[in-house]
């Protein structure tokens, strides 16, 4: 039996219902795309092996929304700790995107960054690398990835060029050099870059030897004995903070005093624990890295916000990690402002056309090439003075003159 008033769906009803259901299902995506603030997942190794650097980046990220708001940008941050673990980096990036993140920033460590890149590529969410130097990151053809950081080759290339500038500025020549590096992922990649770039850089002194060491070693007495036997005037180093401490301590113990210890682009010599462990012995070491441009108003704003938020930490020490993390978030915020939407492909297109002249770190405008690499980052020569990183070259960003050769270990106070 059929009732006359029984509802019989027509084609129009079905189409209308389907459209309504589609609109309902698409609503979160539409709302997300039209959000007023860009939701950025900041994925960092805040615990585990890379915790110290991750924390330093995090301190920069925490103050970023306020500084960006003053500059007319609007961002909302989701902080994710990937525990220095690739598995966690991948699943947590998935989670952050599932919970509405429209852009991802990270991740300090190259393996984790690659794991995140695959997720971002599949989800069409821009990944802006704050720090990670493995060249392959921008050589793999990822469309949703850009890197506002130097590759290993760029770090070493810039580092060597600045050694020449330093010699010219101080009129102190070096007769020879030794390269000492940690035998980890970063150190080995720097060694490869050094082997390739040193001959091409036509340095005015020979590289006597490259000496690798295990960063987990209890001391570096054997390595320092080797260096001492070669009697180099310049020691080029690629270290992490704990082994940088061991290296300098063993040099002091063995009374080995080169004219300079220079890092052509690595951490270690400017970490807070390095200053605390070595006191006056931490002074006068040099490192050639992109550094906060104290003359930039954006740097000044970030430094002021940082000092208020983190009174027990020093921006001068943290500015490398904090600055690059800030800039990565800024790139996303700027693209969002220009694109007017957080829709993945549109936002990524805007990220690719970034052109930010006023930013934190030394170098030209933030721009990306077709592979997503920013090639405008310039390193500066930074020297530890009174346990504070101080830019000494190039002159346009320097706040003090370089001291070379470094004073003897004895008599420092």
């Amino acid at each position, binding site marked *: 039996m059929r009732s006359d008033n029984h509802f019989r769906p027509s084609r129009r009803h079905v189409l209308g219902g389907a459209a309504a259901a589609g609109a309902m299902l698409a609503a979160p995506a539409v709302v997300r795309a039209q959000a007023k603030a860009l939701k950025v997942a900041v994925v960092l190794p805040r615990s585990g092996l890379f915790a110290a650097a991750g924390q330093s980046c995090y301190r920069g990220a925490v103050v970023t929304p306020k500084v960006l708001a003053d500059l007319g940008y609007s961002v909302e941050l989701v902080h994710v700790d990937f525990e220095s673990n690739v598995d*966690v980096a*991948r699943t947590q990036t998935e989670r952050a995107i*599932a919970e509405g993140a429209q852009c991802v920033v990270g991740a300090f460590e190259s*393996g984790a960054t690659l794991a995140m890149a695959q997720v971002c590529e599949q989800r069409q969410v821009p990944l802006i690398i704050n720090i990670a130097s493995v060249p392959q990151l921008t050589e793999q053809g990822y469309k949703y990835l850009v890197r506002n950081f130097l590759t290993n080759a760029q770090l070493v290339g810039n580092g060597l060029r600045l050694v020449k500038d330093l010699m010219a500025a101080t009129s102190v020549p070096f007769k020879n050099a030794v390269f000492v590096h940690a035998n980890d*992922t970063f150190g*080995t990649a720097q060694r490869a870059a050094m082997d390739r770039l040193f001959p091409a850089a036509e340095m005015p002194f020979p590289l006597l030897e490259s000496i690798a060491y295990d960063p987990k070693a209890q001391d570096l007495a054997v390595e320092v004995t080797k260096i001492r036997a070669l009697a180099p005037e310049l020691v080029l180093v690629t270290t992490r903070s704990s082994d940088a401490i061991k290296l300098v301590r063993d040099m002091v113990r063995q009374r080995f005093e080169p004219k300079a210890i220079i890092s052509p682009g690595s951490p270690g010599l400017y970490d807070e624990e390095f200053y605390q462990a070595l006191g006056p012995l931490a002074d006068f070491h040099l490192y050639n890295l992109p550094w906060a441009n104290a003359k930039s108003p954006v740097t000044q704003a970030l430094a002021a916000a940082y000092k208020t938020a983190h009174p027990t930490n020093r921006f001068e020490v943290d500015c490398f990690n904090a600055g690059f993390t800030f800039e990565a978030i800024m790139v996303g915020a700027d693209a969002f402002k220009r694109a007017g939407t957080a829709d993945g492909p549109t936002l990524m297109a805007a990220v690719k056309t970034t052109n930010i002249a006023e930013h934190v770190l030394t170098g030209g405008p933030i721009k990306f090439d077709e592979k997503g690499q920013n090639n405008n980052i310039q390193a500066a020569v930074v020297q530890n003075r009174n346990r504070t990183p101080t830019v000494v070259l190039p002159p346009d960003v320097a706040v003090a003159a370089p001291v070379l050769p470094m004073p003897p270990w004895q008599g420092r106070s």
Partner: protein
Amino acid sequence: MISLWGDMNRRGQVVVALALLLLLVAPLGATRYVLSVLTLILYFVYVGQAWNLMMGYAGQLSLGHALYVGLGGYVSAALWVHFGIGPWLGVFPAVAVAAAFGAAIGWLGFRFGIEGVYFALLTIAFAEFTRIGFDHIGFVGGAGGLFIPYEEQRLGQWWNLRGSQLFFYYLAFALAAAAVLLTALLARSRLGYQWIAIREDETAARALGIDVFRAKLKAVLISSSMTAIGGVFYAFYYNSLFPAQLFDMGRSIELILGPIVGGTGTVFGPVVGAFILTPLGEILISVTEHLGINAPGAKAVFFGLTLMTIIYLVPTGVWPWLSRKLGLARRRP
């Protein structure tokens, strides 16, 4: 398979069938995040089961099982990157290399009577010197890592393990299911009984005429081969390999936590362990975030405390206790 099924009562069979069905249809309702977590769980079920054969059944403690994951991953990735040999073919040399290392460790250990913690130290030593060795092998990128290129034109080529998250989920599911079945099969085989006899009392096993050396070596060979296949999965899932990450002692511990928590020497122990530990980690991340606990490492502390509690309450593992409580196993006369 039949013996595994026959070991369970009706309730147990229903629970297992339901769990299998749920896992099969999970992608229909799960978000990509949940799917990625499930993939990780199934991967740990697989490698945990491989370790369980060696430790849980044969009683040989290996604390360097990451060695085989690393070897499997590196061999298959290097064959793909340098010679274009796909992972379905590359898995055979990967397994062969891992088995050769396993045989070397086993031969050294069993031939010279290195047992217990000393055998465990031997496995750690092999993993460590392999890590250091790979740091210096330029052919596979040294310490700088080996990268499997992301090639857009290969996306979706499941035969080259270039599939989507869904593909890797089902691959992990197939691996985990196969590992469970193989374990069940081996546990009821002549070899399985020999392993259990050796585990319980090696001298008595020898007195019964069991070729202890051969049986233990078989355990190492099967376990290392299986783990190497897990390494191939890892390499093509993450697309990057670093010696410091892959051969690390922490990785080895991560692999064996599942079976230990779930219950070693049982077929379902590694499954239950993996289904407890991986989600626990994810849940603790969410909980600490929602509670506003912004201390990095807080999750690790909670994780450790939870593990301690589990091990204190059920020292023989969760699965034996759970199956008893839920009455899942068939009662033997």
